[in-house]
C-alpha cells in the first residue's frame, strides 16, 4: 500500500488537528486531550510508515505536490509537499519518538493543572516539526520552523509562574530568532535570485541543477559565490535552532520546561530541525564545492562550527551537576558532530547520527524524567545516588542510552553512527583540526556520561527523597524499554558492512558494503578512546562513590578554576549579557532618548523660531513638546497684541502709516528700477 504524495500533508495535519481539539476542549477534558494527541501521533506514525514504504520503492525520486498559496502579480506564491527517503525516515523517527514521549507524559504530567494545555502544545510542537519535514518550499519550511519556535516557547515556559522558566522561554525564542533572521535573509536572497522557493519543481526548483548552477556562478561581496552567501545565511538559522556555537546558550536553559518537553526538544523536534535543514538544502550548500577559486566554501564554516560545538559542549558537560543540564550539553556536543558530518560532506552520516541520537537522547531524557519524577523533582546529581537498586528498569534503559551515547562498540547504535562521522571527518581534505576535536570529544563524552551514571545510580542515596524513590508505572517504563530497543537496533541499519540506510538516503537502489577491516584502524582508535573515557570516569567517580552531599568533586579538587569556569558554562551567558544585552539596552535607551528629546526637541525648536526666547527650562519630554505648542500659541497671541496696539484709534497715526507706506513703496519702485 502506497501513500500518494498529495496526502503527505496528513502527517503534520493530524497532530495539528489534535492540538486544535485540545485547545478548544474545556479544561477538564484531560483524557480527551491526551487521547487525541496520542491517537493522532500514532496515526501519523502509521502514515509515515506508509510514506517510507512509498519512498523506498524508488529511493532516488523526489515526489512533490505543489500548490498555489496566493496570487502575486501574474504568478503565485507556491508551496508544496515533498516525499523522499530523507523526509520519510525523519517522519517515522519523529512520530515514533514523539508517540512514546506523549505516552510517557501522561504519567509524568498527571498531577499538573494545565494537563490539557500541555498536550495541545506538544501536538503543535510535533505538528510543526513534521511540517518542516514534509515541506517542499523553503517558505513553508520557514513557517513551520517559526511555529516550532512558538511551540518551544510555550513549552519551555510551561511552568510560567516560575520566573526562571519564563526567562528561559524568552531566551530560547529570542536566541533562535537571531538565527532565524539570518535564515529569513537567506530565504529572501534565494527568492530574489531564483524567483522561486520550491525545493523541487520539475527542473525549476532551487535545489535543482539549473538554479544551483546560476547561484554558484554569480559572485557577491567579498568574492563569495551567491550560493555560499545564501548557504551561510541559511546556516545561521540552523545554528540558532540546533544550538550551535555561538548561539548554543538557549539550549541548556531550555530544560526549565517539563522533562518530556526537553526530551522532545533534544531528541526529535527542535534541534533536529537545524540538522535536517542543512541536509535538505545540502545541494545548495555544496554547490560552491566545484568552484576552486572562491575564498570560502559554505560547508567549511559548517564543519568548523560543528567541531567547535562538539568539543565545547562535551567540555562544559563535564562540570555540570544538574542531570538535565549534563544531557543538554551532551546534545549540544552531539549536534556539533552532526554539523561536522554535514560540513565534511557526509550528510547521510549526519542524518544517521540524528536518527540514532534521537532514540538514545529521548531515552536518556525520559530516563532522567523518570528519576526526577521518582525523586520528587530533584535534579542535582550530587543529591541523588544509589538509585540502581530502587529503579531497575530505569537504570537498565538509562545505561543502554548512556552506552549508546558514549559509543560503546558494536552493540550500540551510537557507535556506528559516530563511527561514520569520524570516518568522514578523517577523509576531509581541507583540515584535520575538526577530526582532532571530534576525537577529544569522544573521550569527554564517555567520561561525563560515566560520571552521570555513577553519581546518579551508584553509591548511596544522599537525601530523603532519593531514599524513598521507587520505580514508576508502566506508562513511563514501557516507552523507555521501546526506546532502548531502538537505541540498540537502529545502529544495524547503517553499519559499514551493510550501509542500507545511507544508500537509501542517497537514493541508490543497491547497497554497497565494505568489509569492516577496511576502516579497522580508525575504528580501533575510537574504541580505545571510548575505553579511556569510560575508564577514567569509572576510576574517578565509580570506584569511590560520593558519600556526603557536599563532598567536593574530585576534578574540582584537582583544578578548581577550570571546573568552576566550566560549571559556569565558560561565561557565555555573562558575555552575551555584557555585550549583546547591553547593546540592545543601549540601543533602546538611545532610541527612546532620541524620540523624547531630539525629535521632540526639533519640534520645539521649530516652534520657537517665531520667538526670541532664551532659556530652556524644565526639560522633560512632555513639557518640551507641549511647551513648543504653547510657545506657538503665545507667539500668535503676542503678535495679535502688537497688531491691536497698532489699532490706536488715532486717525493721525493711520495717516502716518499710509504716508510712510507710500514712501516705502515708491522707494521700492524707484530703487527696483521699475519706475
Amino acid at each position, binding site marked *: 500500500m502506497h501513500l500518494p504524495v498529495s496526502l503527505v500533508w496528513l502527517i503534520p495535519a493530524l497532530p495539528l488537528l489534535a492540538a486544535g481539539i485540545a485547545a478548544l476542549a474545556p479544561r477538564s477534558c484531560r483524557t480527551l486531550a491526551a487521547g487525541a494527541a496520542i491517537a493522532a501521533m500514532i496515526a501519523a506514525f502509521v502514515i509515515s510508515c506508509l510514506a517510507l514504504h512509498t519512498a523506498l520503492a524508488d529511493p532516488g525520486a523526489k515526489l512533490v505536490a505543489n500548490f498555489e*498559496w*496566493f*496570487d*502575486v*502579480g*501574474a*504568478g503565485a506564491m507556491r508551496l508544496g509537499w515533498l516525499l523522499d527517503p530523507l523526509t520519510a525516515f525523519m517522519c517515522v523517527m519523529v512520530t515514533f519518538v514523539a508517540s512514546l514521549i506523549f505516552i510517557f507524559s501522561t504519567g509524568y504530567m498527571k498531577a499538573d493543572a494545565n494537563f490539557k*494545555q500541555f498536550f495541545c502544545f506538544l501536538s503543535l510542537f510535533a505538528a510543526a516539526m513534521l511540517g518542516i519535514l514534509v515541506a517542499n518550499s523553503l*517558505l513553508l519550511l*520557514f*513557517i*513551520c520552523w*517559526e*511555529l516550532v519556535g*512558538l511551540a518551544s*516557547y510555550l513549552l519551555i*515556559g510551561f511552568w*510560567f*509562574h516560575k*520566573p526562571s*522558566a*519564563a*526567562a528561559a*522561554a*524568552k531566551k530560547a*525564542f*529570542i536566541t533562535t*530568532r*537571531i538565527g532565524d*533572521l539570518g535564515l*529569513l*535573509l537567506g530565504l*529572501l*536572497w534565494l*527568492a*530574489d535570485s531564483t*524567483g522561486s522557493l520550491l525545493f523541487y519543481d520539475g527542473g525549476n526548483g532551487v535545489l535543482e541543477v539549473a538554479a544551483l548552477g546560476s547561484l554558484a556562478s554569480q559572485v557577491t561581496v567579498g568574492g563569495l559565490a551567491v550560493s555560499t552567501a545564501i548557504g551561510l545565511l541559511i546556516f545561521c538559522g540552523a545554528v540558532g535552532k540546533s544550538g550551535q556555537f555561538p548561539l548554543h546558550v538557549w539550549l541548556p536553559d531550555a530544560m526549565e520546561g517539563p522533562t518530556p518537553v526537553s526530551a522532545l526538544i533534544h531528541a526529535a523536534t527542535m534541534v533536529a530541525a537545524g540538522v535536517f535543514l542543512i541536509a535538505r538544502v545540502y545541494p545548495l550548500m555544496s554547490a560552491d564545492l566545484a568552484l576552486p577559486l572562491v575564498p570560502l566554501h559554505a560547508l567549511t564554516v559548517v564543519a568548523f562550527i560543528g567541531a567547535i560545538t562538539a568539543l565545547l559542549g562535551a567540555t562544559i558537560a563535564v562540570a555540570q551537576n544538574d542531570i538535565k543540564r549534563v544531557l543538554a550539553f551532551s546534545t549540544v556536543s552531539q549536534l556539533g558532530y552532526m554539523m561536522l558530518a554535514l560540513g565534511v560532506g557526509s550528510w547521510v552520516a549526519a542524518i544517521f547520527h540524528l536518527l540514532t541520537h534521537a532514540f538514545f537522547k529521548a531515552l536518556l531524557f525520559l530516563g532522567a524524567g523518570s528519576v526526577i519524577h521518582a525523586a520528587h523533582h530533584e535534579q542535582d546529581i550530587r543529591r541523588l545516588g544509589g538509585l540502581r537498586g530502587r529503579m531497575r528498569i530505569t537504570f537498565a534503559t538509562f545505561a543502554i542510552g548512556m552506552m549508546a551515547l558514549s559509543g560503546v562498540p558494536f552493540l550500540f547504535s551510537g557507535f556506528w553512527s559516530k563511527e561514520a562521522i569520524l570516518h568522514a571527518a578523517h577523509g576531509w581534505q581541507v583540515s584535520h583540526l575538526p577530526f582532532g576535536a571530534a576525537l577529544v570529544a569522544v573521550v569527554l563524552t564517555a567520561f561525563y556520561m560515566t560520571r552521570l551514571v555513577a553519581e546518579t545510580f551508584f553509591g548511596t542515596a544522599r537525601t530523603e527523597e532519593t531514599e524513598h524513590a521507587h520505580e514508576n508505572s508502566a506508562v513511563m517504563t514501557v516507552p523507555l524499554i521501546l526506546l532502548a530497543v531502538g537505541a540498540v537496533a537502529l545502529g544495524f541499519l547503517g553499519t559499514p558492512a551493510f550501509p542500507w540506510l545511507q544508500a537509501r538516503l542517497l537514493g541508490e537502489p543497491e547497497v554497497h558494503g565494505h568489509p569492516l577491516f577496511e576502516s579497522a584502524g580508525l575504528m580501533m582508535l575510537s574504541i580505545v578512546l571510548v575505553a579511556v573515557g569510560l575508564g577514567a570516569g569509572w576510576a574517578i567517580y565509580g570506584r569511590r562513590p560520593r558519600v556526603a552531599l557536599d563532598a567536593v568533586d574530585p576534578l574540582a579538587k584537582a583544578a578548581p578554576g577550570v571546573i568552576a569556569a566550566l560549571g559556569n558554562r565558560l561565561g557565555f551567558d555573562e558575555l552575551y549579557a555584557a555585550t549583546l544585552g547591553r547593546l*540592545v*539596552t543601549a*540601543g*533602546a*535607551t*538611545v*532610541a*527612546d532618548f*532620541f*524620540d523624547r528629546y531630539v*525629535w*521632540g526637541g*526639533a*519640534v520645539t525648536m521649530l516652534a520657537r523660531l517665531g520667538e526670541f526666547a532664551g532659556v530652556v527650562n524644565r526639560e522633560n519630554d*512632555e513639557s518640551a*513638546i*507641549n511647551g513648543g*505648542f504653547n510657545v*506657538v500659541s503665545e507667539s500668535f497671541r503676542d503678535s495679535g497684541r502688537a497688531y491691536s496696539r497698532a489699532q490706536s484709534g488715532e486717525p493721525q497715526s493711520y495717516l502716518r502709516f499710509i504716508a510712510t507706506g507710500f514712501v516705502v513703496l515708491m522707494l521700492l519702485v524707484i530703487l527696483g528700477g521699475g519706475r
Partner: protein
Amino acid sequence: MSSLPILSLLVFAPWLGALVLASLGNKLGAKSSRVVGLLSSGSTLGLALVILANFAPAGAGYQFIERHSWISALRVDYHLGLDGLSLLLVLLTGLVSPLCLLASWKIQRAPHHFAALFLLLQGAALGVFLALDFFHWFLFWELSLVPAFFLIKIWGGEGATRAAYQFVIYTLAGGACLLLAFAAIAVATGTFNFTELATLAASGQLAAKLALLGGLWPKVIFIGVFLGLAVKAPLFPFHTWLPATYAEAPSGVSMFLTGIMSKMGVYGFLRILWPLFPAELHAAAPCLLGLALGGVVFGAFAALNQTDLKRMVAYSSINHVSYCLLALFAVAGASNAPAATAALIGALLQMFNHGLSAAALFACVGMLEARSGGRRGIHDFGGVRTLAPLFAGFCGVAMFSSLGLPGLNGFVGEFMIFSGVFGLAPWAAGVACLGLFATALFLLTFWQRVFHGPTGAAVAAFRDLDRVEILTLLPLVVLMVLLGVLPQLLVGLINPLVTTWVSQLP
C-alpha cells in the same frame, strides 16, 4: 447594483446614526444608545460585505462610481469610487469600528455622546477612503480630527487634554501644508480630481504644468503634500505626537486611531503622493527609505524602553506602519517588477493586518487597564495568565500576530514586504531585520512581565474575560488565524490592482 448610491450610503450611514444619537441620546438611555451606536457602526460592515459580493476583483479601475457636479465654479465634483485598496480599507473599518465600540462598552460617561462622536469619526474615515476629489477628500480628512479631539480630550486619561491638543495642532499643521499644496496644484491644473490628476501625472503633463508656476514651486508642492501625509501616517520623525495621543486616548479610540486613522496616511501616500509625483518620489526615495527604516528600527527600540504598555504598543504601531512606507518608498526608488509587486502586495496586506493586530493589542491593554483601575505600567502586573488564561490566550495570539509569527496574518504581509524590499534595496531589508528582532524582544518582554511569573498581589482580583470582551477579541483573533492561513482571501482583492500599478511603473 445599478442605481443605488451604495458608497454614499456607506459613508453617511454612520453619520445618520450619529445624528440620531445626538438628537435622541438623552432619551434613549445608556444601554440602547450603545446598541444604536453599535448597529450604525456595524452598517459599514454589512454594506462592505454587499459591495464585496458585487465587486469585480479582476477590474483594476474604480467601481460603484458616483459623480455629481457640486461646485461648478471650482470644478469640484462629488465623486466617490472604490477599487481594491479602498475596499480593503473599508472592510477593515467595518470590522474594527464596531469592535472599538464594543471595547468601549463599559464607558459610563455620556455613552450616547461617545457613540455619536465615534460614528462621526468613522464616517469621516470612510469618506477619506472613498472620495476621489480632493475637495471633499480633504473635508473628510480634516473632519476626522474634530470628533477625535473630543473623544481623546473628554474620555481620555490624565494627560488627555494636552495630548489631544498636541494631536490636533500637529495634524492640523500637516493638513495645512496639504491644503496649500493642493491649492497650488488646482491653480496649475484647474482640477481637484484624483483620477484626472493621476492621468495628467502619468502622461507627464502635471509636472509640466507645475513647472509653469516657476522656480521651486513643484518641489514645494511635493513637500507640502508629503508633510501632510507624513504627519498623519506617521512617518519617522514626524511621529512625536503619536505615543502620547495613543497612550492617553481611551482604548476604543486608540484602537481606531491605530487601526484606521494611521491607514489614512498610508492610503494618502498610495492614492495621492505616489501617482501624482512619481518623479519627485523617485528622487527622494533613498532619503525617505532612510526615514522609513528609522521608523522601523527606532520605533522598535524605543518601544523596548517603554514602561507604559500603551506607549509600548503605540511605538510598535510606528514600527509596523513604517514597514508599509518602507515598501512604498522602495518601490518608488527602484525598478524591478516582480519585487515591486511583492512589496506592494505586502504593504497592502500589512495595512489590513496591522489594523487587526494593533487594534487587538490596544483592546487587550485597555482590558488590563480596566481591571487594574487605570494602571498600565509594565511592572504593575505579573502572573495574569494563571488567573485569566483565556485573556492570555487571546492577547498572545494578537501579540504573536504583531510579531510576525507565520501562521498568523502579520507574517504574510511582512514577508512580502521584506521579499519585495530585498529585491529593490537589499541593504534596507537587512537593516529592517533589526526592527523584527527588537519587536520580538519587546513583545516577549511585555508578555513575560504581564502574564508570566508569580501572581502578584496587585492582580489577585483579576477575572477572566466577560462576554462583551470575548465578543470584542474573538472576531479579531479568528481573522488573524484565518488570514494567516488563507491570505488569498485578501490578495485576491488587491492583486489585479497591484499588477496594474506595477505595469504602469516606468
